[in-house]
């Protein structure tokens, strides 16, 4: 397949264009800073986006709307458990992952046992998780242990640590999807669940694993974000609801399922950060910024699709 046909190409082109336009404003000054910021903040969107991508790969109607609530709950509980004490970072991560496992299993239980459509099941469950987060800590903001905060905001070889974590997770997902049996099963289930079941794919196990994976990713993102920004807030995941879906589809993953695309999630995550930065830098007001963001998203989708048709 030629480069031009790669579905992820357009998100990267758009990200590069937004980057170039922003840097053009300062005649090149601040390019490094901007790239660094894009990588740091893009990493959070990419991590939740990767999870959402797996779910969207399961086919039409599969989407997880509990990502924001899971992020909030994992951030809240993990920081509460750590209580700013040094040396508790791994324990906190463990708590976050447990939260992810718990919410994922609960989501899937609703979907599987009660046969609820995933959109409704995860939406309804997310309201419960949000209440749980409120109840557990009443919105008090606990600082992360200093070491963890330093790690989350720090860099290694000039690259933000959170981006490195994100890249590691991406690599893991990429290998799973491209090379492993589990990845094949996921892609098969996404194309035609019934046919996959009849071909011997353990479809329910695949679905369960996927719904757990997305919340575990969200929980890790919540844990990192809370550490990065100095504590968990009750609304900290809110913007990742639409963001997680946007980065998946702008990145070129088919919403019809059965196909996923890891590099695109990164391209789209960087783009979503850079486009806002670009418009802010040009001094666009909120209205202009929103209209342009929307039009650019649609533009990318059209560009990607006409390329595909004119193959």
């Amino acid at each position: 397949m030629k480069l031009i046909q790669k579905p992820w190409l357009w998100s990267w082109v758009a990200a590069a264009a937004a980057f170039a336009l922003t840097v053009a404003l300062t005649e090149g000054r601040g390019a490094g800073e901007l790239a660094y910021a894009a990588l740091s903040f893009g990493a959070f969107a990419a991590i939740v986006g990767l999870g959402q991508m797996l779910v969207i790969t399961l086919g039409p109607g599969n989407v997880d709307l509990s990502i924001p609530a899971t992020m909030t709950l994992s951030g809240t509980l993990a920081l509460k458990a750590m209580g700013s004490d040094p040396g508790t970072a791994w324990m906190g991560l463990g708590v976050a992952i447990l939260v992810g496992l718990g919410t994922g299993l609960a989501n899937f239980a609703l979907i599987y046992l009660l046969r609820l459509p995933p959109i409704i099941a995860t939406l309804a469950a997310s309201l419960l998780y949000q209440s749980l987060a409120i109840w557990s800590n009443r919105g008090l903001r606990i600082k992360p242990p200093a070491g963890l905060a330093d790690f989350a905001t720090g860099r290694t070889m000039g690259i933000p640590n959170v981006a490195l974590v994100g890249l590691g997770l991406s690599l893991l997902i990429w290998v799973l999807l491209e090379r492993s049996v589990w990845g094949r099963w996921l892609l098969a289930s996404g194309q035609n669940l019934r046919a996959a079941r009849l071909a011997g794919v353990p479809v329910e196990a695949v679905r369960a694993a996927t719904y757990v994976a997305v919340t575990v990713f969200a929980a890790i993102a919540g844990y990192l974000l809370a550490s990065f920004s100095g504590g968990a807030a009750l609304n900290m995941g809110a913007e990742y609801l639409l963001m997680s879906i946007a980065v998946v589809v702008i990145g070129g993953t088919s919403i019809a399922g059965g196909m996923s695309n890891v590099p695109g999630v990164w391209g789209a995550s960087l783009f979503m950060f850079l486009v806002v930065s670009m418009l802010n830098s040009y001094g666009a007001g909120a209205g202009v910024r929103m209209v342009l963001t929307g039009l650019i998203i649609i533009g990318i989708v059209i560009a990607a699709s006409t390329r595909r048709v004119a193959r």
Partner: protein
Amino acid sequence: MKLFAKYRILLPVVSLAVLLAATFYMQPRAMSYFGINLLFNLAVPIALATVAQMMIIMVNDIDLSLGAFVSLVACVTATFLNDSPMLGVLILLALVLCYAALGAVIHALDLPAIVVTLGMSFVWGGLALFILPSPGGASPGWLRTLMTVKPPYIPMAVCASVIIAVVTHLLVIRSGIGTVLRGVGGNARSVQRAGWPVVRLKALAYGLAGLFGVFAGMALVGLTTSADANIALRYTLLSIAGVILGGGEFTGGKVSPVGAVIGALTLTLAASFLSFLRLSPDWQIGAQGAILILVLTARLLFTRRDAQA
């Protein structure tokens, strides 16, 4: 088989009736002309938005921009339509046409509707901010009168819901063109092969969604008397939930307009029911999720029993 077809309508009706009974038990004051109107009048715009969402789900797409669109319509209604009605009507018509064009573009270029509407949600939201950077405007007098009218015996909210349900049922289920539109959701290819211009059908479905979205925004302003750019953002998820509660399915053109209206009423009622329960504020948000799960689970039990019988 016929029984099951009937059940699809019956289940939403039963859930609504049970919830209503529970609400009346909790709050006997609600069992009056005045009370029922208060319980349901804000469900009218939600019902209209749910019908709009249903038009899109009917052709196998999903609209993530509906809430932003209804907000924009509300802003237009509270400003232009109020100040210079002609201009306002023209803008609203243009918005409906935009929706139709969106449907045509989505089909012609084979774009994923979910992404395009996600993008459009930013566009509508941005436009709404242009019109009303901060909350304000006022409802046109006639609209306020219409939404607060007090017909004899039956409260406005109930009248309006019944009218919406009947009209959309005739349009979507009974009429020929409605049947063809549902056919597009069931098997677009076969509709195309039968000689229908599917692009135009999709444009029609989206146009209808836009029209009902406009009605939703206007009804909302009639009730709230003013608008802001964020006023109806929740309608996106509420409308999707309403369609599903009403027995619709995301794919395959299986929708029920009557069910969708009932679904919207159920959602509104569920929120009221919860506030009558007087839960601790910590759990008030979670309880909304719990009741959604409960209502859908009750339906599941019914269908299971039906399947066993």
